[in-house]
């Protein structure tokens, strides 16, 4: 009984270990030739097509909310001239990667998990292995790379749309002046902010794709198993991404000194 409880309690560690081992397999598969260019392009196109519209739609209110909150706060400090800068900082550093992660996990990852899960229960993956093809090299590696590429792209999209949304909101609704908004852009924000946003997006894409592929390839027990795999992959990815986002932000704050006025 005691051992049963222990094994239950330790089960997540076992899963984490297997996920990590799977990640290493993918890493090895990355260097195996021939590279599946066609699959990569198809997947990149597919993931982009399911994420672009929702990302843009999420980014606009995101930018607006941040402009609203930050704008209000900054007014209390009497530092209206920094509104634009603060919005850029918030969107590029945090909102971009977070919105990207939500969409990559929710739309891209779930589609990947469902696709691989369906192949798993149809025994397509087994058939592939019997035919001497490694599904990790053939299917997983292109998906992981595609997901990373699209994540970086989406992050850029969120940043641009978010900043524009913030601008419109600030100028039209909060009576800010366009000049002040634009002029303050560079006051606090700096180029490394952009790099760290991209780095985050890359890592998020990697994690989302690896979790989704792992869950899909280990789906079991008929169509319900595929549903469960999709569900679990989204939940696990969300949790991982928020933790990783925190860690990466903390590291960034340590490494890059904030720009002063």
């Amino acid at each position: 009984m005691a051992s049963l409880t222990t094994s239950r309690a330790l089960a997540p560690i076992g899963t984490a270990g297997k996920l990590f081992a799977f990640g290493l397999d993918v890493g090895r598969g990355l260097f195996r030739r021939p590279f599946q260019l066609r699959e990569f392009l198809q997947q990149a196109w597919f993931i982009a097509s399911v994420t672009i519209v929702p990302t843009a739609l999420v980014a606009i209110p995101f930018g607006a909310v941040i402009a609203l909150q930050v704008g209000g706060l900054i007014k209390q400090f009497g530092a209206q001239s920094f509104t634009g800068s603060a919005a850029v900082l918030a969107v590029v550093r945090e909102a971009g990667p977070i919105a990207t992660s939500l969409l990559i996990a929710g739309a891209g990852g779930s589609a990947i998990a469902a696709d691989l899960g369906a192949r798993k229960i149809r025994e397509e993956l087994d058939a592939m292995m019997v035919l001497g093809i490694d599904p990790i090299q053939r299917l997983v590696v292109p998906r992981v790379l595609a997901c990373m590429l699209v994540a970086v792209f989406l992050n850029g999209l969120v940043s641009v749309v978010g900043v524009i949304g913030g601008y419109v909101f600030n100028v039209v609704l909060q009576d800010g002046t366009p000049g002040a908004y634009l002029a303050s852009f560079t006051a606090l924000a700096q180029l490394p902010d952009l790099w760290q946003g991209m780095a985050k997006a890359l890592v998020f894409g990697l994690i989302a794709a690896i979790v989704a592929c792992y869950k899909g390839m280990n789906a079991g027990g008929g169509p319900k198993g595929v549903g469960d795999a999709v569900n679990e992959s989204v939940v696990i990815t969300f949790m991982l991404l928020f933790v990783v986002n925190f860690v990466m932000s903390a590291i960034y704050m340590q490494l890059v000194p904030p720009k002063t006025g």
Partner: protein
Amino acid sequence: MGVDIRVEELSKSFGKQLIWGDVTLTIPAGEVSVMLGPSGTGKSVFLKTLIGLLKPDKGSVIIEGTDIASCSEKDLYEIRKLFGVLFQDGAMFGSMNLFDNVAFPLREHTKKGESEIRNIVMEKMDLVGLIGAEDKLPGEISGGMRKRAGLARALVLDPEILLIDEPDSGLDPVRTSFINQLFIDLNAQIDATFLIVTHDINSTRTVPDNIGLLYHKHLAMFGPREMLLSSEEPVVRQFLNAQTVGPIGMSEEKDADELAAEKDIEMPPLPPIPLQLEPSNGIPRRSQRPAGEWCRTNGITPPPGSFESSNAGLTPGS
């Protein structure tokens, strides 16, 4: 000319659940063997262990001197080139049409040109009766067609061993007869070792040279067809003759009371042994043995009426 598969003391469990244990048998080269077992006894797991998709907990699977259960990944990929596998639902790649599916192994493993590939694919498609369906996607065709397409793909690299998972599940009796005939004709033609996994009793009685019975987490018996069809062993007898009286119940196992109550009941007499299915061109297969030979050499009197027709003792209506 086919190769044999030596399975020694093989055991497999998932977690604490034992699927089957201590399975020892040799699947003879070039012959057609059937592994029969109720649903859920781990027949598919057995096939997957034979090709190294699942690792057994114990035991070995030896093919041409290589142990599948313990060899390196590289050797495994090498030895798998001897195999053709037909999975339960065909396992066609959903994103490719049937032609590309069947051509897939050729494109991956040979340097043949497109026109040569086309010839080989068309030949195999013809063999399984799928000419005209090359451009269809797997999602657009019936289960029976998917199976036949899977068979064409399994045959395309001229395998020495053909593993077939439940060819008759989801097929109507007529299609089942056709696919069974196809296996016999194929065996006559390519002499590969066939292992068919099924729970269909009629196919088991008429198709193979050898029968194995997987039951209650172990291999109850494996041997020549006539040996099992004339066996007095209760489990074998009950299963092969589809009877309700015997140790097998509706649930996995009958309970002790039920068994005790049945102890004194005579099991019904063994039905006659049917003739084995022959190749459709009438030329005997290399591994085929004359009807009744095993019974004669082993001094067993077959049930009356045996070897008179090809459907003796079959359950009517199926």
